[in-house]
């Protein structure tokens, strides 16, 4: 188990290296000039040129990468051209918000996915099955931003039941300990802050979660159907175990394996999906940071956020692999 994690961490290093190089090159060949962008509009061409050589932009690409890598190794990922703050700080400030959103969305997706999968499985062979199945197909085709807009309209505008901008009521003080707002609210013991933060999280998390639930429904149902063809299920019935027990103790654990793989992949996509949802809900996370950076051609930020996504996905994959080993004894060493 530990060995697998260690091996995973080791393979992550070259992957990160390659991704960073690709990001670097891709961003440098874009037709934007960071030097010009970082100067006030009144700067002269000579001043811009001076800035360019000061930033090292006139050197060969690989050398530039080497410089960047060296600085990165010392914890310096550069300055935002637009916001003029260290990129690392910017990402550190916004990442917790995004993680909070993604985890909440994943919880929603898992709850809906598992519940829906079980329900669909329970309907097997009945007439309602077809209807339920078609409904999942329809749901599957609705992207997260449509849910986001729909929820704003229904719960935010029509019913005015839930807030739909930002992370917290403007009137409340924002505790800043870990950056994870829910956690911080608990740490400072402010129920009103916790409540407000939760209320702000509901709509974006639901929109994102709802979009990612249908594939989980499908995979869980189909792997349950597969598992129920297996001999050990029949043998468990022949031992007189109740259907409930067979499902919970025998079938679910086996059916969870393919579902887990899917959820790992999805969790990675979820960070990508959170981008649009964050924009729609003005949610101050990594997505919004990224969108602003793109708008301003703020290359250091784009690069850093790209790397962060990469690290997140790798971390999630490692976690899923680890869980897989825990759940599947065949992968464990004797």
């Amino acid at each position: 188990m530990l060995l697998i994690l260690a091996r995973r961490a080791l393979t992550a290093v070259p992957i990160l290296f390659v991704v960073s190089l690709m990001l670097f090159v891709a961003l440098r060949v874009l037709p934007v000039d960071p030097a010009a962008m970082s100067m006030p509009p009144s700067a002269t061409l000579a001043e811009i040129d001076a800035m360019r050589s000061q930033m090292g932009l006139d050197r060969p690409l690989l050398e530039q990468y080497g410089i960047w890598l060296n600085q990165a190794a010392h914890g310096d990922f550069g300055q935002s051209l637009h916001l003029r703050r260290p990129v690392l700080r910017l990402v550190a400030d916004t990442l917790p918000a995004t993680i909070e959103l993604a985890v909440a969305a994943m919880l929603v997706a898992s709850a809906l996915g598992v519940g829906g999968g079980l329900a669909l499985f329970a309907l097997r062979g009945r007439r309602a099955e077809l209807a339920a199945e078609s409904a999942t197909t329809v749901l599957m085709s609705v992207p997260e931003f449509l849910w986001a807009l729909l929820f704003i309209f229904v719960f935010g505008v029509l019913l005015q039941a839930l807030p739909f901008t930002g992370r917290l009521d403007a009137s409340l003080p924002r505790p800043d300990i870990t950056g994870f707002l829910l956690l911080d609210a608990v740490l400072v013991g402010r129920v009103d802050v916790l409540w407000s933060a939760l209320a702000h999280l509901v709509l974006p998390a639901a929109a994102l979660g709802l979009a990612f639930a249908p594939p989980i429904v499908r995979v869980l149902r189909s792997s349950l159907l597969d598992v129920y063809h297996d001999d050990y299920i029949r043998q468990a019935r022949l031992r007189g175990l109740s259907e409930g027990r067979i499902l919970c103790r025998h079938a679910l654990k086996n059916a969870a394996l393919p579902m887990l793989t899917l959820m790992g992949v999805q969790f990675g996509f979820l960070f990508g999906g959170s981008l649009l949802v964050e924009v729609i809900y003005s949610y101050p996370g990594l997505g919004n940071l990224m969108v602003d950076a793109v708008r301003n051609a703020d290359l250091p930020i784009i690069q850093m956020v790209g790397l962060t996504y990469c690290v997140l996905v790798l971390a999630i994959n490692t976690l899923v692999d680890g869980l897989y080993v825990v759940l599947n004894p065949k992968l464990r060493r004797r």
Partner: protein
Amino acid sequence: MTVLRAEGLTVAMGDVPVLRDIGLSLEAGQVLGLVGESGAGKSMLGRAIARMLPAGFGVVGGALAFDGADLLAMPAARHRALLGREIAFVPQEPLTALNPVLTIGRQFGEHLKRLGIPRARDAAIAAFEAVHLRDPAGLLGRYPHQLSGGMCQRVLIAMAFAGRPKLVVADEPTTALDVTIEANIVRLMAELQRGHGTAVLFITHNLRLAARICDDIAVLYSGAVVERGRGRDVLAQPAHPYTRCLQLADPPLTGPPRALYALPETMPGLRDAMRMKGCRFAPRCPVAGDECTRGSPPMGPRAACFRTELTGGIAAPSLQTQQHGVGMDNVLEAIGLRKRFATGGLFRRGGTLAVRGADFIVRDGEFVAVVGESGSGKSTLGRLVVGLETASGGRIVLDGRDVTRGGEAARRHRVATVRMVFQDPQSALNPRRRVIDLVTQTLEARGVGRSARRERGRALLAEMGLPPDAAGRMPHQLSGGQKQRVNIARALCSLPRLLVADEIVSGLDVSVQAQLLLLLARLRREHRFALLFISHDLAVVRHLCDRVLVMRSGEIVEQGAVAEVFANPRHEYTRELLAAARGH
């Protein structure tokens, strides 16, 4: 006291019956054998007892009583309460009958808890000791995939007997295991059965096995009981012509060798059977008369047959003196053949030696058997010969030419000389071609004309006991056994100098097995080819082959003429194998 009683039990899919008018009774502490060919409906009875008939099937008539209570009418909850406690089941496939993600201890503990047995751990250890499992305490923490098939079956048997049930239903409990283990498992079940006074319904396609361990036997044909009697009587003196034919189709392991009786054609399918009038065995019955097709023969004291007095007269054709010549040349010469499989990852050195230094020859036209328990390296040996594995050491000489080291010429020589036929037909048959084309594929490659191909293909299919309409079907429209036969027919269509056959008769019904054995013998007479016959069935080996190699853990521990080795086994292991096969 009667534990299980079926009266007029009829199970049907829609209006097509699979079990017709079954009458059986099983007394406490007795073993009842239910014997019949594949598709006869044996498993349906077990499924009816468990109330787990396949979708679309239902009991349409008759009664099924357990311990005096109506099994079919009782509320589901009450029925379920019986399962595992009073009625237990031993499955056919032990390896897949245990949940792969739960430890043995968990699953056993769950069962014991349901049975209300306290101190589950101690009870489980005691139960494992009773089925002679080594290291019972260590076993509790293991997962099913870490156990062999035989060990899994012991665990499942321990589970079945844990609640001291009144009835144990065992559906082909040893079919998936090899002979040495089969004998142990059968002995174990008999031991527990006697010890606990349990009644056992033993479902099998093996009449010989049933006769050995069952007090009573019921023979099932096309969904109906055709003969019923004491175990030994049914095998020694069959009353129904069908049973007699089965007995004669099975090659004997002891006594003088005799020719096999080939039951023609196959058991009618469900729908065909429904349309038949009179005795359903009539089309295949050697003593059928006019009255047989007029009405259904009623069940007599022993058999459902109009002419039981003729049964004893059915005889196998007399044994032809074996006049197939074995040539002097060697088709195959293996010298110090070795195969090592790498196990584990990059960092683990070593591996397993699947074949360690095999020396043997196969002469032109000679049938040589390879026997031994599973995992002894039989299949690897065959695969080395045909080139599906590369040897780690030693040499293979085919027809005087060394083919050990690859090379295009050597490869072509090998392809021209030797071919392999597998048991598993699933992977071997192209799903998009018709049976007749599949069977004659090798002829097609050689440019034989279409009509000639068809003719040869049809003849082959008939010889394999396949119905004529099978020719036009696609592989998926055949049953498992039929696919197996198509696959074999394909290999026999144009014979190589040496055919390597891996377990091609195992799992086949004796009637089909006899057809296949007779076909092999005839082809040998007509075409002369050599055969390396990998099998665990010693009776079949004795019937078919000239010489035998006995393998154990990758080594050939004994080889010699079949008659000689079977009469005077030199190696301890050969003696063990023979004893197991004879059921001692």
